[in-house]
């Protein structure tokens, strides 16, 4: 439970309910600022080149235009896929884990995190879709009935689970996001006129905040949240079995499912923070996204970073302890001291060491430092996926087969294209949709039912904090 007396106010400035509506809707009721147009243009160009040139080229010519080869058959496509899926876990991790754990400080951030999820999963889904080489045959993946060969799909394959898991995840997170927005769309509907009113009338589904509606709304969201929480764990565990069900040293690891799930939450949280720093600065929402919010997220990132660091150590230990030549080649000869040592050590620095700076309160409350560290984590997490996908495959059991991997310009543009897609999505979101859940913020601001800690709890916690 969040204790205002101990952890500070969630919303500063003693806002009335009307103030909250006005503050959050300012971003869409005023004209778009110059920076919005400039960044929109940049992301749009990236998206246009990536999705308008690199992706069609891949589909027309085949994936031979990428840097993939016989040894490294997955390359950047799967690196980016796993990276985006990881970022896409932010919404659920943030919004739903914190909902289930009753962390009220989530309310200022959950809407943006859920939006990110939807765009990131869209970007992620693109990669396997074009990586199969013949997207027009993709319907084979779905069990629509015995296909032309009289076969059913292989329900034992993690690659097939991925299709279902990601489709379900995208559906669930999009629905969770949208249902949560119904009351806010109704607020906009009531305030606007003309065409805007028509659009938001359609989008708000005729919502009126009746008691009976709120009861159903809360129950439906709780059910969705409760189902999405284990789903997140399932989705990334399944992504990890794409690797760990293989026999390649470096992939064949039982640690992968938890390792991937934690890594996903790590990169997701970091991306949320990166965005929230920008949103707070750009829209001057200091009263809603306070230093206490960043402090709380930074603590979680520090904790998760320790788990990541331990996982890296366990991998090295097992590689040595197993006394398996191939295993220790990947981890000790190749990662630590070989010619893949640069991405490996940068990964360790960005993911395991840099976030440890958050142990200092000054850094937890310094926006620039937070921004730099979380960008570092995002780079580190991309490198982690690179380290998993490329080195073990490029140098496996038989040295005669070894083949180095380098991405082509098309690989790079497909990736930049998805960054453009994500950026365009997020920019449209902050311009046209209330970027914080107004109804939930108002619930935090309500006056009469603040649950107070008992006197004994209060003094004990206060004393602890003072001693610190």
């Amino acid at each position, binding site marked *: 439970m969040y204790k205002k007396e101990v952890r500070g106010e969630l919303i500063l400035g003693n806002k009335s309910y009307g103030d909250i509506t006005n503050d959050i809707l300012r971003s869409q009721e005023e004209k778009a600022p110059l920076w919005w147009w400039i960044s929109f243009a940049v992301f749009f160009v990236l998206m246009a080149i990536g999705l308008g040139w690199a992706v069609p080229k891949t589909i027309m010519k085949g994936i031979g235009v990428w840097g993939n080869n016989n040894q490294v058959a997955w390359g950047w496509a799967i690196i980016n896929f796993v990276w985006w899926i990881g970022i896409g876990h932010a919404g659920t991790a943030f919004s739903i884990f914190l909902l289930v754990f009753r962390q009220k400080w989530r309310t200022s951030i959950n809407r943006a995190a859920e939006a990110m999820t939807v765009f990131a999963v869209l970007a992620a889904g693109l990669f396997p879709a074009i990586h199969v080489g013949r997207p027009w045959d993709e319907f084979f993946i779905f069990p629509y009935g015995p296909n032309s060969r009289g076969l059913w799909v292989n329900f034992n394959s993690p690659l097939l689970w991925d299709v279902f898991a990601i489709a379900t995840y995208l559906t669930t997170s999009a629905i969770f996001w949208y249902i949560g927005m119904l009351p806010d769309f109704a607020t906009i509907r009531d*305030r606007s006129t003309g065409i805007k009113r028509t659009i938001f009338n359609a989008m708000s589904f005729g919502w009126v905040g009746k*008691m009976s509606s709120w009861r*159903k709304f809360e129950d439906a969201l709780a059910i969705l949240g409760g189902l*999405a929480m284990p789903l997140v764990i399932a989705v990334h565990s399944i992504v990890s079995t794409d690797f760990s069900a293989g026999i390649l040293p470096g992939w064949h690891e039982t640690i992968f499912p938890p390792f991937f799930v934690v890594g996903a939450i790590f990169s997701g949280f970091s991306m949320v923070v990166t965005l929230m720093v920008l949103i707070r600065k750009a829209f001057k929402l200091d009263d809603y996204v306070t230093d206490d919010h960043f402090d709380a997220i930074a603590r979680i990132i520090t904790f998760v970073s320790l788990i990541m660091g331990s996982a890296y150590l366990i991998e090295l230990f097992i590689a040595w302890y197993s006394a398996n030549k191939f295993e220790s080649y990947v981890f000790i000869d190749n990662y630590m001291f070989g010619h893949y040592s640069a991405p490996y050590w940068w990964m360790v620095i960005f993911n395991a060491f840099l976030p440890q700076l958050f142990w200092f309160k000054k850094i937890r409350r310094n926006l620039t430092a937070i921004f730099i560290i979380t960008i570092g984590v995002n780079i580190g997490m991309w490198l982690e996926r690179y380290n998993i996908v490329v080195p073990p495959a490029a140098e496996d059991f038989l040295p005669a087969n070894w083949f180095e991997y380098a991405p082509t310009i098309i690989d790079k543009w497909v990736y930049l294209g998805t960054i453009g897609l994500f950026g365009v999505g997020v920019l449209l979101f902050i311009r046209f949709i209330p970027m914080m859940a107004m109804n939930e913020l108002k619930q935090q601001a309500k*006056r009469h039912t603040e649950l107070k800690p008992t006197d004994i709890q209060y003094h004990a916690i206060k004393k602890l904090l003072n001693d610190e």
Partner: protein
Amino acid sequence: MSKIVAVYSDDKKLMEAADMLVEAKAPVEEIITPFVIEELLEKFHVKSNIPLLAFFYGVFGVTSVFAALYYTFVVDYPLNIGGKPSLSLTFPVLMFIGTVLITVLSTVGTFFYQDKLFPGKHPDFSYPGINDDKMVVLVDKSKLSADMEAKLREIFEKTGAEKIDEV
């Protein structure tokens, strides 16, 4: 002019009014708030059967996905994959994912159906500020005795309703 509307902008006062309304056994039709006030829902014993229905959707999901997997992989076309049994221990993975998908879609469908929400629907009640910062208590006037109406108006005035209106 068949409904009395009492407008509040302070939830503290609204809760006071709610206490008195429950005590007076007033036939309150609805209370409309811009955000959920759990205590209010508890006070008026507002319940929904969505959690129960969701459970049944879940049970349906598990069984139907299992049945589908069993039919395709054991009955219709048992593939020999490395000599492993057709009724595979990996089934729970897809059973879980399928159950989530089925439950999510049907729960949301139920929510929309029960609350009669659909794209483009016009709100069935509107009053300035109800989705912004105003909380309103709605009472159907036709169901009120003259005594009760006087009592309600007294409660609304006493608890500091900003406005008592009729629509």
